């Protein structure tokens, strides 16, 4: 039971609502990862895996566990510009990858709304992007990866390995991913052609996604969660295409063309923007902001295609550095639910209605289209997802959780799915039901085989009873 108090640290999930004290270890090699697992086994302590800490809830924190932070394993090992593949240590971030490959005309095949996740985290959660409706999650583009299993074995898994689709998506509960070889997307330009369309209600939202489903490269839509009645579901739909006729390509493929500006209107340093955002970060402020955004979407640039850099379009969340601090002191949770397409219009409308009834409207609503996938903890459905951000305070926390449970119940009844990287509120039976008995039994079997001492855990795993030690 001994442990080194000098390693004690406190980390939080990205949403800043929950945190945990743990013993921090930052390995730089696969051998060190194996040593840490061995140390854990000998001392009886559990291990929690953490990448960049971008999961919103409690998936990347573990109270009193060894926190294995992979971010120092950040070497790009080999980039093959002829084949379009990149081989990296698993702590390499999406940002490192795009900066490394863009001048040779490549782009990561799937990216999240932020460029900071590590590959280990990206695979652990099997993240998706705005091209989820045709590309699926990032796991679809992994050629091979190395894993250190807690049972002492080390394996290289490729797409033919039965375990390949199990470790990806397993939320860091089956093995430690230490190296990843990824297939990259060939691009001809550093810009996308982006078409914004202002949509007045739910019906128009779904129609836009249907219309562009077969021809777009990216689709995403913003929802004003404050709009009610006939205006419910209004927002701004964006679709985008890769350019293959860009005469400026050599320039647009330069990293400096991609870099996000560090000021707003060429004047205000972005690093301070969250402080102003904080003033607006309340119900009336956000009602006004959402209204203003919809108004400008309707009046400015509506239906007019324009070029935008890949970074600018992809990494919307990185525009305002430290934006999450606007949610302090209580932090925020994100709920992203995935609903089959035949039920999505009704379920999303009801989700919005529930928020408005509770006077707890999400300050930001984001909708995407998805397809099913074969991974263990899959969140893919032939349908849509709606991501919601809820500010959490001391006084509203209980009500936010009640609302979340009501939303989760709706989704479950419609045969929907959840995404552990975004979760804070699921109850054990919710996750089990969404996963299905078969997948759950498969997980239990693999856990016993690959991690017989239940070394890998997290506060999320304990909450959802995915850690055999928490089942008792």
């Amino acid at each position, binding site marked *: *039971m001994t442990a080194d108090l000098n390693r004690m640290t406190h980390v939080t999930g990205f949403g800043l609502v929950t945190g945990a004290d743990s013993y921090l270890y930052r390995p730089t090699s696969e051998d060190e990862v194996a040593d840490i697992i061995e140390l854990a086994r000998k001392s009886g302590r559990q291990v929690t895996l953490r990448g960049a800490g971008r999961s919103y809830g409690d998936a990347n924190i573990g109270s009193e566990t060894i926190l294995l932070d992979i971010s120092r394993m950040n070497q790009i090992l080999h980039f093959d510009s002829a084949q379009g593949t990149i081989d990296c240590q698993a702590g390499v971030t999406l940002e490192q990858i795009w900066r490394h490959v863009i001048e040779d005309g490549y782009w990561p095949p799937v990216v999240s709304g932020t460029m900071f996740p590590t590959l280990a985290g990206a695979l652990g959660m099997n993240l998706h992007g705005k091209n989820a409706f045709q590309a699926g999650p990032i796991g679809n583009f992994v050629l091979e990866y190395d894993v250190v299993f807690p049972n002492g074995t080390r394996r290289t898994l490729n797409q033919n390995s039965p375990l390949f689709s199990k470790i990806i998506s397993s939320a860091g509960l089956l093995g430690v991913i230490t190296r990843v070889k990824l297939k990259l997307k060939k691009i001809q330009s550093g810009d996308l052609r982006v078409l914004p369309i202002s949509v007045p209600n739910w019906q128009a939202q779904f129609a836009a996604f249907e219309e562009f489903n077969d021809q777009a490269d990216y689709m995403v839509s913003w929802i004003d969660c404050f709009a009610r009645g006939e205006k419910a579901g209004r927002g701004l739909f964006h679709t985008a295409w890769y350019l293959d006729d860009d005469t400026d390509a050599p320039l647009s493929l330069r990293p400096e063309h991609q870099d996000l500006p560090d000021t707003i209107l060429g004047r205000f340093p972005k690093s301070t923007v969250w402080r102003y955002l904080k003033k607006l970060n309340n119900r009336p402020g956000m009602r006004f902001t959402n209204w203003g955004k919809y108004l400008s979407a309707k009046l400015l640039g509506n239906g007019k295609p324009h070029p935008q850099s890949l970074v600018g379009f992809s990494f919307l969340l990185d525009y305002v550095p430290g934006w999450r601090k606007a949610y302090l002191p209580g932090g925020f949770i994100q709920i992203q639910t995935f609903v089959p397409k035949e039920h999505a219009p009704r379920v999303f409308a009801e989700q919005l209605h529930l928020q408005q009834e509770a006077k707890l409207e999400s300050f930001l609503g984001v909708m995407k289209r998805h397809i099913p996938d074969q991974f263990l903890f899959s969140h893919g459905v032939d349908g849509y997802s709606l991501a919601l951000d809820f500010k959490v305070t001391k006084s509203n926390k209980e009500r936010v959780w009640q609302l979340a449970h009501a939303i989760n119940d709706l989704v479950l009844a419609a045969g929907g799915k959840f995404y552990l990287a975004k979760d804070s509120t699921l109850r054990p039976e919710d996750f089990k039901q969404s996963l299905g008995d078969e997948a759950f039994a498969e997980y239990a079997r693999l856990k016993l085989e690959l991690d017989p001492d239940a070394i890998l855990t997290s506060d999320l795993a304990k909450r959802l009873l995915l850690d055999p030690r928490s089942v008792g």
Partner: protein
Amino acid sequence: MPTSVIGVKAIVVGASSGIGREITRQIADGGGLVVAIARRGDRLEELAALYPGRIFPMVQDVTDHDSIPNKFIEATDKLTGLNLFVYASGVMPEVGPQEFNIEKDQQMIDVNISGAVAWINQAALRMQGTKHGSIVAIGSVAGERGRWEQPVYNASKTFLHAYMEAVRNRVSRYGVHVVTIKPGPVQTEMTERLKLKNAMSAEAAAEKILGLRNRTGEHYLKFTHLIAFAIIRNIPSFLFRRLKI
């Protein structure tokens, strides 16, 4: 109204009697979790039985320094966290006006000084890493001057105050609250034989201490003590030794 202790995960050393016991009880009563540490296991069991699942008894003799690091980890594992550490162990054997007794003195040094340092070092080491939490030590107004009645007891509390001040100067910059409480007379087993007048009850003292747990600094429990001891601290030594206080 007592301050909320919901979400508190505490270690209380010296939890079997007096102020420590009462702090333990009040945390558990308010919904917090406590690892209750003392030498006398039967007393801890008795207390823990009142709040099953909230008080975890742990037997430890604070004079056994070597066992403290492991016990500390065992306690934080039990709590799955730590945001409050209270050192409330203290002894004050009866010492006659002309008695100089190294055995009794050593006992006070072991419990009031060495035990405190050994435990608080662990809490400070952890909290300077986690950058949150409170460390509370129960000192005494007796530590304000070297009074004739209890040379080593007074000196042991003076030591504790200075040590806590130094710990405060080290770790409060990381957001850790470091609180020294200087109670006056409180009705406890330790003070029973003194037949104190105007003594505060242990319940009232514990409630005040829990209310002060996030207020970094030194605190008296009565406003009159603040005034009285400001004066007493400043009485010149040549006068002080002629006084009967």
